[in-house]
């Protein structure tokens, strides 16, 4: 447990000292979602309709931008190797890195989303569903993405390849997350979608650390 907290503390410390890296993904989220109204037109009804999809896809893409930094730096400077040689279980340390990544890349998206949602004219309840959905969904994106990040460590064409690997796996999260907001908007209630998102989170929390740990050991061989 101490080791888990130590990993999180370490990664957060590093992120604080490399703020620029962290903020780029956030700015990307803001810019990308702002581009859509510019491209599609300012008609309010249309914007409200596309908002869930646009915001969720924006969050997806912003998360993907940040995935590379999860393990790449540690791999390059040898600290990942040392983690694999720690008496503490590697899966525990990996979980710590996932949490740290989410705190740095995912949580800010959750906080920003309602503000961006206002741009699209979403009402209060929809904004709440959007935020809650992202709160549950962004950890899934971090967990599943970490498998892709670990598999592509030190591999040519890392970034683009990572996107190809990870985007298909993101589809269910996108569908349920955006769907929740749409359900709320159409009056059907979002509880079904949100519970499915929660189920995805449980599944990801169960499977992803194993897969990521295996992928890291493969990359270190």
């Amino acid at each position, binding site marked *: 447990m*101490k*080791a888990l907290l130590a*990993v999180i503390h*370490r990664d957060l410390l*590093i992120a604080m*000292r*490399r703020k620029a890296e962290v903020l780029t993904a956030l700015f990307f989220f803001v810019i990308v979602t702002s581009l859509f109204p510019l491209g599609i037109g300012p008609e309010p009804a249309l914007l409200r309709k596309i908002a869930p999809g646009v915001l969720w896809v924006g969050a997806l893409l912003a998360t993907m931008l940040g995935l590379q930094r999860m393990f790449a730096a540690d791999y390059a*400077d040898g600290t990942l190797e040392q983690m694999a*040689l720690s008496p*503490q279980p590697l899966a525990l340390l990996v979980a710590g890195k996932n949490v740290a990544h989410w705190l740095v890349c995912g949580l800010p998206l959750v906080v920003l989303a309602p503000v961006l949602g206002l741009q699209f004219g979403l009402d209060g309840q929809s904004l709440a569903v959007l935020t809650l959905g992202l709160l549950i969904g962004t950890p899934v994106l971090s967990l599943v993405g970490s498998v892709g990040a670990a598999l592509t460590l030190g591999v040519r064409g890392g970034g683009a390849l990572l996107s190809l690997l990870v985007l298909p796996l993101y589809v269910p999260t996108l569908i349920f997350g955006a769907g929740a907001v749409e359900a709320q908007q159409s009056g059907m209630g979002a509880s079904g979608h949100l519970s499915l998102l929660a189920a995805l989170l449980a599944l990801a929390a169960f499977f992803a650390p194993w897969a990521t740990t295996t992928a890291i050991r493969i990359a270190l061989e």
Partner: protein
Amino acid sequence: MLRAEGLSCRRGDRELFAGVDLRVEPGQWTHVRGANGAGKTSLLRILAGLAQPDSGEVRWNDSPIAQDRAAWNTDLLYLGHHAAIKDELTPIENLRAASELEGHTLTDEQALRALRRFGLKGREDLPVRFLSAGQRRRVLLARTMTRPAVAWILDEPLTALDSSAIEDFSSLVADHLSRGGLAVVTSHQALPLAGGQELVL
């Protein structure tokens, strides 16, 4: 006691080495030598448990390391090619983080003592990226003091060290051996250390 039997390793098309046997008792050290690309690093990584050999097995105190990884990891200190320190953190933060990742806590005192032993006095509060390559290696070597481990596996530990640092380091290894530790070392330079076996790949 560290023992390896019949280790072989292939990388892609090439067979790097085969039928390698190794036996290191407490108080002994083995110098692994060979030309560049002969597989020294691969051998050390296999001994450390980072890579799987294509055949053969490594045993620590008579049990295969693959079966009880945590036990081997507790007794092992592996220093590879990379400095294994984070540029953004100071030397003290690095040593503390490395310890906590292994489940120990390191006091500031202990960390400072280790750093000073390696001549890093006055540099403890700068992020490591402001240090020279030699100083970075010394932060890494400081880990040997903050991490009690019986088995040391060191890959080119003398890289980027000047002659006084090399002497320092050698006396450190000698201390370690006299306390019942063991070591497997690769090095292009000669290590001024008595009583080593040689393994040539």
